[in-house]
């Protein structure tokens, strides 16, 4: 009996230690987080490769939603992840000033200042704008004469039952998401016409003709590959979304070199290149690590 009790206690203690082992930081170890779509698998991968090159021990934790990623950073479950300026501005800080959010430098400065009060540091921004877009198949858009979101709004108001839209639950709920669009562009799509699915499936749904319009990300390689067009955001509803590595101040103070290590990504990654990388993973089904490595090598960033 006693042996049994002792054994169980030992087992529970061992398990508890291994569980907490995840929280115990080792030498120069970092937890890099990421959200749940391809670009947010590539950016952390690029960062990890560069960091590992400089001797850091990096653990990747990707595949979560925006709010969870943000909370994880605030609670020190992540040390660093790539957040978009527009997302922080509209979703976390619930701001709406068009004059600020449509100008890359202004929105970057604003969120940088706001987060410095939370001991979070925004490093160098990557220059491309991965904005949400409303996509349609080129052929259908031409047929219906829809070029901008305003056009779409007018079409929906005239034919409320004809349009089906695909999106993911995050885009539905966010202030910079579909509900906000309907308000700004003054139309209402009945909830029956809204199909919710996981984020990567919206492209497939649009391509297969299951829906007439879908939400997408501007740097996704599938927009070009599948013959989609992005509807013009004529009322400037969407903010600018530049991805920026956000790191906990504690970590940056301990390892200030992180800024310099990650800077090359900000300097060299253009919109077209990001689209290429996304395409390689999504359409050519290449391995995320290999794609990241290949790009870094092409920029002579690998020692």
């Amino acid at each position, binding site marked *: 009996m006693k042996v049994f009790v002792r054994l169980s206690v030992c087992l529970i203690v061992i398990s508890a230690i291994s569980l907490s082992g995840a929280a115990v930081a080792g030498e120069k170890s970092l937890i890099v987080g990421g959200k749940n779509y391809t670009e947010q698998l590539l950016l952390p991968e690029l960062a990890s490769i560069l960091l590992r090159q400089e001797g850091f021990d990096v653990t990747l934790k990707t595949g979560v*939603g*925006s709010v969870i990623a943000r909370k994880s950073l605030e609670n020190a479950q992540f040390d660093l992840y790539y957040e978009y300026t527009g997302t922080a501005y509209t979703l976390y800080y619930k701001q709406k000033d068009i004059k600020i959010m449509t100008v890359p430098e202004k929105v970057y400065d604003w969120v940088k200042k706001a987060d410095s009060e939370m001991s979070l540091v925004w490093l160098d921004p990557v220059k491309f704008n991965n904005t949400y877009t409303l996509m349609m198949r080129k052929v259908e858009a031409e047929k219906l004469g829809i070029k901008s979101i305003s056009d779409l709004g007018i079409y929906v108001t005239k034919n409320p039952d004809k349009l089906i839209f695909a999106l993911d*639950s*995050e885009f539905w709920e966010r202030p910079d998401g579909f509900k906000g669009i309907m308000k700004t562009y003054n139309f209402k799509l009945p909830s029956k016409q809204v199909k*919710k*699915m996981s984020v990567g499936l919206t492209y497939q749904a649009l391509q297969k003709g299951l829906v007439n319009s879908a939400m997408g990300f501007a740097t996704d390689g599938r927009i070009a590959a599948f013959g989609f067009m992005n509807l013009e955001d004529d009322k400037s509803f969407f903010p600018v979304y530049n991805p920026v590595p956000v790191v906990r101040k504690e970590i940056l103070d301990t390892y200030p070199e992180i800024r310099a290590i990650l800077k090359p990504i900000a300097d060299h990654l253009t919109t077209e290149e990001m689209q290429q990388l996304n395409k390689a993973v999504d359409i050519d089904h290449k391995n995320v690590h290999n794609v990241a490595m290949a790009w870094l090598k092409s920029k002579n960033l690998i020692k």
Partner: protein
Amino acid sequence: MTTLLIKLYRVILAIAILAVGVIAERTGLIELLSDPFEYPVIIELFIQHLYIVTFSMAFATVIGVTAGILITRQRLRKFAGLCMYIIGLGQTIPSLAVLALAMSFLGIGTKPAVFALTIYSILPIARNTLAGITAVPPELIDAGKGMGMPPIRILMEVEIPNAMTVILTGFRVALVINIGTAALAYVIGAGGLGDLIFTGISLMQTDKLLAGAIPVTLLALFADFLSELLGLLLVSKGLRLSV
């Protein structure tokens, strides 16, 4: 009868516990439920969920029971062991994977979801039908033969009634798992209560999460209770007493 009461007790207990939880979450959940914009959406998702579950269970029961019966017929009996083994293997495939694979072959939406759930639910039903019928004491079958019953009558009046308890258990297990797996169908675009659960998780909105998780749990418990009730109707008194 006792099992029925026990299950009723369980449902009530669960409702009580969850009610406490709901009250604790009062600010979030009740607000969400009484929001005139959100409420119809929740009802719609609930109905969607029921739709997927009902259709897939209907198909699965018909196919599963028939398959189970067929394997026990004279000519095919030798394959019974092999079939059990294959079904056992099939049950190790995670439910999420079956949904995902159906999606890659059949596309997005409710159709692949119903298909995947049907396949996934056939396994416990077929396996239990097989086990139930093979477990019918051969003396009873002999008695039937002795009375001059043709094989069909033996099946309908001897084998199935005696196997009913086991078959129903398979049905019950399949149903409860089906309800839970249908919550995953959101991921392949089929909607259902999973929509609320996944949204709640990815946006850390506890009220949405509970609005999805609680109904699904209650549905599963209720289905469990209903299955027991069904047992009361379908299993003959004599067999019930002997359990």
